[in-house]
């Protein structure tokens, strides 16, 4: 080993001196630490001992009150109500059996579950309450309250509970709260929340949860050995959540839901100028207040397994064949591509043969010679079989997509489904068989593979009448506190514009006005007094009937095979302020079932605007 870097004598002397210095430095530092420990443990120790044994300092949450939800006119839709919870602090209970027996004599309780909860609490968390019964009625509250003094350990807590003013009104839109789950705990939007909190699970409650929730406050409190608060040392108040103002018109929403009359279906109304949703009703609905009260397993399973799917929001996730509504798309495609002359008349004999198959028109005797206008007004199937054949499926698909069908609308709420616009490539990819030409004919009248949602249709009909602007449907007008507007405010958002010639749009618009207002128009039941509406009927086949069989009476067909009724409409036709899409499942023809509802809703809304 090489001997290297030996100290030179001066350096060595300095190092030795410094090492002695370091030793003293260390002794001084330790001296300070000893002095500090002496001061904490010996001089002030008894004080700290008292604090630790008799009075312990704990942190308590102060929960913020959740923001309210209003409709566009400032009518309150959702608020918070106090709810009374019967609980018990395990460490305070002297005789658990006696307590439960005493309580069960007063009110109905689940003694076995409560017993288990108390035992678990004693083991893990003896100073925090376990809940025995939630949501006491006034009567139960009175009976327990007067006997509380004789039951040590029992407490009554008041907690706010979410409350929908009109029960099922706009239930799918508003959504409900549920206990936070593990995935949500990790997400940024829920950073204000802790385990056990109720957070938005669906709908607006979920979408704007981070604003509705508010900011948690806290208290540093002195508690005694049983967790009772003796004194609040410091506190930071909670900041209440912001209020959400929806674009929904509460009265119109109520009318829409009443019109559905608990039949399966959906109604959505939109302001075609701004994209604001005025009403979106889906039926059957559920009651969010059932969730707030605490949904038990049985109730939840009933909701989930209900064959009528009350939890599904049919406005955005109900996918239906568009039926004759699709003729508007095919008509625009035909005009744009120049494959038809609007004045040319085609013959409808009630049926159309193609590749040895017969395609029927809905009108048994046929329409005779019809031009473009009449074909739409009377919804002639044969005219559109021929037009579809000329266009080909891929051209139809190109137009349908460009016009905003078969894709999500940008609402960004809940489980919106995209629908489906079929094409040759799609069929090969999905079914591994080539496209059949005959299928083009079915698609041209909106049957077979094509699927759309009511929200897509209302956006579509709005675009037709607002100059081709595909607007983002919006359900929120603004979010803020109290009357101060504009913490967040939404403006119309044009996502895309149709590139369709103005004169072609005008031709189609004129035809849709005819549907409602002309003789033989299929939508005559939607006709209004004094105001011109425009619309289109549709009937979506659930199954295609066997060829030879003539369509029979509605009653003879089993319910689940009956057709869906469609109607889309705007009013007034010259400068629309409301667009509407209605779908009633398994109820028959659009003209007879859906059009009268449209008349009702349009009429009511317009008469309120112009008293």
């Amino acid at each position: 080993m090489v001997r290297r870097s030996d100290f030179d004598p001066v350096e060595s002397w300095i190092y030795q001196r410094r090492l002695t210095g370091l030793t003293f430095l260390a002794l001084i530092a330790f001296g300070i630490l000893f002095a500090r420990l002496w001061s904490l443990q010996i001089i002030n120790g008894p004080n700290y001992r008292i604090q630790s044994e008799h009075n312990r300092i704990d942190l308590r949450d102060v929960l913020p009150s959740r923001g309210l939800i209003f409709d566009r006119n400032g009518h309150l839709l959702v608020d918070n109500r106090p709810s009374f919870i019967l609980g018990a602090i395990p460490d305070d209970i002297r005789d658990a059996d006696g307590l439960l027996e005493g309580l069960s004599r007063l009110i109905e309780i689940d003694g076995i579950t409560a017993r288990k909860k108390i035992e678990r609490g004693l083991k893990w968390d003896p100073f925090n309450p376990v809940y025995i019964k939630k949501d006491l009625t006034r009567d139960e509250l009175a009976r327990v309250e007067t006997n509380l003094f004789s039951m040590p350990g029992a407490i009554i807590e008041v907690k706010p509970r979410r409350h929908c003013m009109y029960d099922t009104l706009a239930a799918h839109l508003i959504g409900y709260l549920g206990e936070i789950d593990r995935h949500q705990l990790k997400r940024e939007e829920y950073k204000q929340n802790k385990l056990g909190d109720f957070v938005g699970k669906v709908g607006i409650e979920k979408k704007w949860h981070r604003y509705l929730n508010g900011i948690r406050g806290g208290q540093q409190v002195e508690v005694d050995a049983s967790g009772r608060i003796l004194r609040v040392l410091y506190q930071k108040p909670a900041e209440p959540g912001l209020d959400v103002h929806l674009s929904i018109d509460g009265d119109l929403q109520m009318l829409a839901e009443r019109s559905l009359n608990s039949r399966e279906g959906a109604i959505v109304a939109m302001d075609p100028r701004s994209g604001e949703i005025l009403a979106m009703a889906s039926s059957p609905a559920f009651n969010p207040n059932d969730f707030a009260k605490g949904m038990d397993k049985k109730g939840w399973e009933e909701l989930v397994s209900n064959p009528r799917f009350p939890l599904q929001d049919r406005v955005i996730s109900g996918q239906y064949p568009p039926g004759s509504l699709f003729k508007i798309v095919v008509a625009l495609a035909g005009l744009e591509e120049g494959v038809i002359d609007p004045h040319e008349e085609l013959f409808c004999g009630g049926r159309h043969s193609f590749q040895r198959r017969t395609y029927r028109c809905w009108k048994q005797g046929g329409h005779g010679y019809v031009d473009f206008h009449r074909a739409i007004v009377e919804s002639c199937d044969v005219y559109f079989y021929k037009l579809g054949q000329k266009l080909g499926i891929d051209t139809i698909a190109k137009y349908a997509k460009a016009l905003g069908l078969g894709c999500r609308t940008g609402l960004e709420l809940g489980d919106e489904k995209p629908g489906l616009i079929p094409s040759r490539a799609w069929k090969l990819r999905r079914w591994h068989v080539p496209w059949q030409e005959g299928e083009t004919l079915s698609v041209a009248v909106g049957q077979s593979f094509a699927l759309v949602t009511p929200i897509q249709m209302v956006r579509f009909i709005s675009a037709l009448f607002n100059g081709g602007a595909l607007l983002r449907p919006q359900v929120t007008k603004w979010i803020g506190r109290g009357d101060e507007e504009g913490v967040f405010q939404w403006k119309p958002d044009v996502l895309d514009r149709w590139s369709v010639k103005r004169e072609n749009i005008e031709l189609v618009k004129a035809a849709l006005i005819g549907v409602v207002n002309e003789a033989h128009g299929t939508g005559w039941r939607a006709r209004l007094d004094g105001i011109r509406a425009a619309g289109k009927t549709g009937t979506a086949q659930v199954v295609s009937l066997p060829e030879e069989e003539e369509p029979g009476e509605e009653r003879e067909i089993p319910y689940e095979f009956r057709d869906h009724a469609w109607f889309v409409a705007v009013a007034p036709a010259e400068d629309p302020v409301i667009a509407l899409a209605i779908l009633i499942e398994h109820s028959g023809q659009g003209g007879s079932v859906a059009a009268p509802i449209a008349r009702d809703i349009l009429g009511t809304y317009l008469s309120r605007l112009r008293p």
Partner: protein
Amino acid sequence: MFDRRLVNNFDWILLATLVVIGVLSICNLYSATNTIRSMGGSQVYVKQICWYSIGFLILLLATTFDYHILDRFAYPVFFISLILLAACLKMGKVAYGSQRWLSFGYFSIQPSELVKVSLVVVLAKHFSELEKHRLRDLLRPLVLIAIPFIIIVHQPDLGTALILLIVSFSIVVFVTINRKAILIFLSTAVLSVPFFWIILQDYQKKRIIAFLRPDLDPLGAGYHVTQSKITIGSGLLWGKGFLQGTQTRLNFLPQQHTDFSFSVFAEEWGFVGSAILLLLYLFLILWCLNIARNSQDKFGTLIVIGIAASIFWHLTINVSMVTGLLPVVGIPLVLFSYGGSSVVSTLAAMGLVMNVSMRRFMFQE
């Protein structure tokens, strides 16, 4: 050429001190994690036993070679630890809002702990090879300190960054003969304090403000210190007894197995217990200084001084922090708090100290 003096000079006293601290640490962790609400947290003390076993193994290994060959390995080891540190930023595991750990499946390591030790060796090498004492010879050490410091600040782990800075500055101040150089150095350090305030994270600023004005943040940092003082103070002279600490068992104390482990010990063993623990550390540090004094070459002296400084500063800052003398900066009590990388790298460093101690007669023929 096996030298019998090596066995005769084996530092049993140093080893015994470390074993006693280790046993106390493990018992204390058992108590700290044995709380009323914990479920599954009791694994911590088992892991600490594993880390201590690995650490002692490495300690023994570190005594088998002559520490002078570190001369050759100092820079490579330092650069490897820097690469690991940089890798943390890229693919590190995020915990408590910072990327300090590199995950290897079953366990994860904290490269900043490795850097602490290798930086001490590199600095010791640099200064032991200097012939003269010129001001510009301080430039290279400053760069060597700055690189890991900046990376660790970015993680961000200000506690570790601070310790790194204080320990390496201690070495620099110790070796610098020139008084003027020391003055320049220290004044630079003081002047950089405002810069520190800028790089501090919001939560760290809050802690310092909470230290100065505890009434402003009663729910956050102020709560930690209040609780820690109650915990320590309520131990009185003899303590509440093993597993009897009410503050700990009822989870009033935050971070009780890491930064606040001393408070747990002080509650259960009182002034007597905590004084004994402090005396153990004091003894360890003085013993190291004695080894430094007896070492026959500059390299060995500086390694030991650097390691002693590291232990001294960890202990002083941690205990001051939990007793409310300093703001809560997130520095663990070395060898006592839970932390695999910290235990293993500290014991490896103690292996080097022992190595120097065993070879103090090497130059005497």
